[in-house]
């Protein structure tokens, strides 16, 4: 029964009672209780005001978000155009393309030019990632590598890695390497991480490139992109199956 009274008290605070219910409820209160109800209402109002303060969307955040939507649109247009081109191709063209692709596949080494799946899907194992690294392991080596590749970002040092490990509840966190691959003519740099024995990569791509739009598109569709963040002039995307949201904090301008 007390539960009902508590619920009535709360529903009254929230304006959820009908006029007659509210009148009945108030009639059942003493002066002191009515006073308490008024205090509760004031507290709720002040708490709500506090929670509403200083949390408007900054203009620059909105502009960046709109830019990402525009990239998403561009990526969609390219995707649709590609599909349409495919649909309207003649049977001869298809046959020729298939034959050409077959020949190329025979000639090309395995692990050649990456398609989008190599970007947005996580590797199966840490070893698989390590095997593709073009850099030594460790924060310093990887930062040196990415800056050599023209990425003007900094990688936090090992002490920060330790904090992330504790803060994120990870039992293991290591930067195991980095690599860069071309995707549709755009360089995509990957920072490779071992988080709790799971393979994680952070994709870094120029914000104004078409690939940034493709990554944004992939974020809303399939793949293992867990989070994205705009850092300086780059879009950083966290690709993993393991929950590692905080790892984007590793990079800064």
């Amino acid at each position, binding site marked *: 029964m007390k539960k009902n009274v508590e619920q009535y008290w*709360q529903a009254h605070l929230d304006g959820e009672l009908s006029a007659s219910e509210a009148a009945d409820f108030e009639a059942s209160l*003493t002066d002191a209780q009515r006073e308490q109800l008024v205090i509760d209402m004031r507290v709720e109002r002040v708490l709500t005001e506090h929670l509403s303060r200083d949390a408007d969307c900054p203009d620059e955040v909105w502009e960046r978000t709109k830019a990402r939507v525009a990239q998403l649109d561009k990526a969609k247009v390219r995707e649709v155009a590609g599909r349409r081109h495919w649909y309207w191709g003649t049977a001869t063209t298809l046959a020729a393309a298939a034959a050409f692709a077959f020949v190329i596949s025979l000639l090309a080494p395995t692990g050649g030019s990456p398609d989008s799946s190599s970007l947005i899907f996580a590797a199966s194992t840490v070893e698989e990632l390590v095997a593709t690294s073009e850099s030594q392991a460790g924060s310093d080596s990887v930062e040196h590598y990415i800056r050599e590749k023209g990425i003007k970002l900094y990688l936090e040092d090992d002490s920060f890695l330790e904090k992330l490990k504790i803060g994120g509840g990870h039992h293991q966190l290591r930067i195991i390497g980095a690599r860069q691959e071309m995707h549709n003519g755009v360089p995509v740099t990957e920072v490779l991480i071992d988080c709790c024995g799971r393979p994680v990569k952070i994709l870094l791509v120029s914000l104004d490139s078409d690939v940034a739009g493709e990554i944004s598109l992939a974020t*809303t569709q399939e793949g293992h992109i867990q989070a994205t963040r705009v850092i300086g002039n780059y879009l950083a995307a966290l690709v993993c199956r393991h929950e590692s949201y905080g790892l984007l904090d590793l990079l800064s301008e």
Partner: protein
Amino acid sequence: MDEFLEKIERHRNEFYRFVHRNVWDSGVSEDVFSQAVLAAYENRHKYTAGTNFRAWMFRILMNKCFVANRETARAFEPLDSSGDAHALAADPAPSISAFEDPVGVLEQCGDEVFHAFRGLSTAQRTCILLRGVERFSYKEIAEIMEIPVGTVMTHLARGRKKLREELATYAKEMGIIRAFPRARKREESIGEIEGRRS
């Protein structure tokens, strides 16, 4: 600008505020907000014109917050609300509303209000924000969160109680108040009402 994006822009402050107050780490507010907008834009064909656009958006924003807070697994577990009122009535913990001037005390708490709010679960914060700040009804919140109305009320009751207790404890520790002069009054009030009703 795209009509759909214009619609989001009209409410962008409330959407961003919801995310900013709801994620554990306010440093990821922009990430979560942007991802929610991208997801909404990509799925705009699923929005039915004429229905509650804000509610539709808040569902997406809420889901992104749960993911960012890594609470997806336990977010929608059923709650046992049967003991709540008894717990509230029996627990002598001080509440901020028990003081002579609760509004003045809250003002002096300053940013501690945000800190204490972050101490609540994502579901509790979501309910408090949707109810208090965004003015959704219990029924609308239940639809957004896809949980029963009773569970919404339980999240609200538990969240508010914990928030008030945290702030009361902080106020006492900081010397904003010296004691808990009327700490049990509200609980006693509820007991008295019940006594008269039965």
